[in-house]
């Protein structure tokens, strides 16, 4: 077996001259220490993205992005296409799991201060990836054209519309018109299957390349005696693969026992369902907007909240440059506390959305 593989490798090497790449891969090492468990999460994000691309491409074979047929085509996939229920449920569940893992990956790199020099660009590209994948989630959610999709999109774009100055224009551009309509569906489909994938591919490419060039970051002040090194290929890859296998099993079980629902077709003239909310990963922002008082000092509560979120996002993106201590390889407890605060806020607000009956 290995002889065959070696022959194939030699074939390609003689024609593509990729031997330097193989040499690099062979030499690449990954540190192992008490925190190295967190290293796996980046790879899991990549793996889940791969699943999304594969299942998404397959869904495109049967999905129709027209308001007369979108919902019906999803229904068709769920009931008539062989294993359609599986492909679609995997796509919907994995989307949520992926965003969850992205948050884990983001916070684990944050707390380990992996963003510090020289990895600032890795962090910033990662931030862009967070935004891109949230956009994936938002655009994809509309595509089944169900009641929940329609109203969640309406609520979400209403919030965009409330931004000062550019709000109204922004909302019209996002929706392709004044309301959620066929124009919106076409637009979101275009984003979801063309623009966002191209952008994500490019940014992931840069992000992964940076990781390859710079190697894995080690926690500040880690005792070098406690650090071992294992080779990336094949040892770390096997460990990666084990994690991926476990996740696959998890996804399989979830999709068989909890297939994603088809829902009711969207009706623009129906009343907004009570308790409509966006998907869980937006709820911490959504609930903030709901509970903030209508006026704080002289500013409208909602506008203030949006401004704070935008400022917060900017801060978060630029944290590698703000955290001077970490840049000097010094422990940075202030930023750890900020991280705890932010993650706690997100967790509490998310739980609040689902536990308090009428917010």
């Amino acid at each position: 077996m290995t002889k065959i593989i070696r022959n194939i490798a030699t074939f390609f090497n003689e024609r593509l001259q990729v031997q330097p790449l193989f040499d690099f891969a062979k030499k690449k090492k990954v540190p192992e220490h008490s925190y190295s468990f967190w290293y796996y999460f980046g790879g899991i994000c990549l793996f889940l993205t791969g699943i999304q691309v594969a299942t998404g491409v397959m869904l495109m074979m049967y999905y129709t992005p027209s308001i007369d047929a979108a919902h019906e085509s999803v229904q068709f996939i769920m009931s008539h296409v062989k294993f359609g229920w599986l492909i679609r449920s995997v796509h919907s569940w994995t989307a949520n799991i992926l965003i969850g893992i992205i948050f884990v990956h983001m916070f684990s790199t944050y707390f380990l201060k992996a963003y510090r020099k020289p990895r600032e660009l890795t962090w910033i590209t990662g931030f862009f990836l967070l935004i891109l994948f949230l956009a994936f989630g938002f655009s994809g959610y509309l595509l089944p054209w169900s009641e929940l999709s329609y109203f969640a999109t309406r609520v979400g774009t209403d919030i965009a519309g409330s931004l000062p100055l550019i709000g109204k224009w922004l909302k019209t551009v996002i929706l392709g018109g004044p309301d959620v309509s066929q124009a919106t569906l076409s637009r979101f489909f275009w984003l979801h299957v063309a623009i966002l994938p191209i952008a994500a591919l490019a940014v992931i490419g840069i992000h992964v390349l940076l990781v390859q060039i710079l190697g894995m970051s080690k926690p500040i002040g880690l005792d070098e005696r406690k650090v071992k090194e294992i080779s990336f290929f094949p040892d770390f890859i096997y460990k990666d693969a084990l994690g991926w296998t476990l996740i696959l099993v998890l996804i399989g079980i979830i999709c068989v026992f909890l297939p994603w629902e088809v829902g009711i077709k969207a009706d623009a003239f129906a009343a907004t369902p009570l308790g409509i909310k966006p998907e869980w990963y937006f709820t911490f922002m959504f609930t903030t907007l709901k509970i903030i008082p209508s006026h704080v000092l002289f500013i409208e509560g909602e506008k203030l909240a949006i401004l704070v979120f935008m400022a917060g996002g900017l801060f978060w993106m630029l944290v590698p440059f703000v955290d001077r201590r970490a840049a000097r390889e010094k422990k940075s407890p202030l930023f750890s506390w900020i991280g705890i605060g932010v993650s706690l806020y997100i967790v509490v607000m998310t739980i609040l959305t689902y536990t308090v009956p009428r917010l």
Partner: protein
Amino acid sequence: MKTRMLGFAIAIGLGLIPLASFAQKNSCLECHKALEGKLKAPAESFAQDVHQQFGLSCRDCHGGNPAEDDADRSMDASFKGVPKRAQIPEFCARCHSDAAYMRTFNPSLRVDQLSQYWTSQHGRQLKAGDAKAAVCVDCHGTHGIQSAKFPKSPTFPWNIPQTCGRCHADPNLMKDYHIPTNQLEQYKESVHAQALFDKKDLSAPTCNDCHGNHGAVPPEVQSIASVCRQCHPSTGELFSKSPHKKAFDEIGQSECEACHGNHKIIRPTTDMLGTDEKSVCLQCHDAASAGFKVAAALKELNDGYEARYQKSLNLLAQAEKKGVEVSEPKYRLQEANTVLISARNLIHGLSVDDLKKTLGEGEATLTEVEKAGAAALDEAKFRRTGLIIATFFLALFGVALFLKIRSMRKPE
């Protein structure tokens, strides 16, 4: 020049219109608002009154001079004061029975309420000298009267049971009249109340739909059936064509009420048919009679179909719970449900043959649904089996990886 004058006139007009409010001085409201309790209440609630919205005021019903601030001078010779209970119907009818006058406000309003009222039990009691009998204000209110189209009005459909019940469900009030006081309680348990209160179906019958509004009387035995036929004509038609019609007419028995009751009309089931003690048929037919045999046959047919329908419903629910998409069989089941509704209706026609025919169509649909349901359950099983196999392979692979990892060179 002309335009300038017109503009001037409009400006003055618009500017001075607010002053017109001073012209409509209403000393009644001004004084009464400053009083307490019972004397203050009319002034406060009048703001919501439908009469106020049409530009009417205290004087239009009670007389008096609202331009006068002095109490004695305002309550002048034309002042009628508070009418006695027995006079209230005519007090209101002064306007409400005047077709020409009412036309100026709302041409579509009826003007026969008073004449209807005198035919009602309430009206007759009042004429006989009973001051406790219901008059206009008992149902419509006094000063905050709203149209029956408004949900807060005591005469809005879902408030009517409570309005009638205020007297009719009060044993103390009703003790001299020797009629039951459990109608409201009974009605609340009925399927009509459920439609009205729970499903908010405003077309569901409430007290006035069967008893009448202003000419309210309990429907006579002969007329009960016509009342029910207003909404249930097909059932009525079937009944009229059945042997029951002649029989019921001969013994002077009220048609629908005999089996379904009057106020507590609950969702009928096939328990009402058939042969055990819950059966209404036993009220007239004894065990040996032909009618009895028909009852038993009807029940058996219906129960058989209903059981099969229920089984299919459960089958689809099971499949759905297991995650299989069953919206198409569910649609077909809806058709079977339509047959079931129609079958229950057909019972009133008492024809076993007709019932068999109708149920036959439904049976065919149910066979289809059962097939689809069974296929869905098979699909659920197939998915679980597939999951087990895939998980098994993945687990094997996981073990292989684990072994590989363990056999790796010790990390440097």
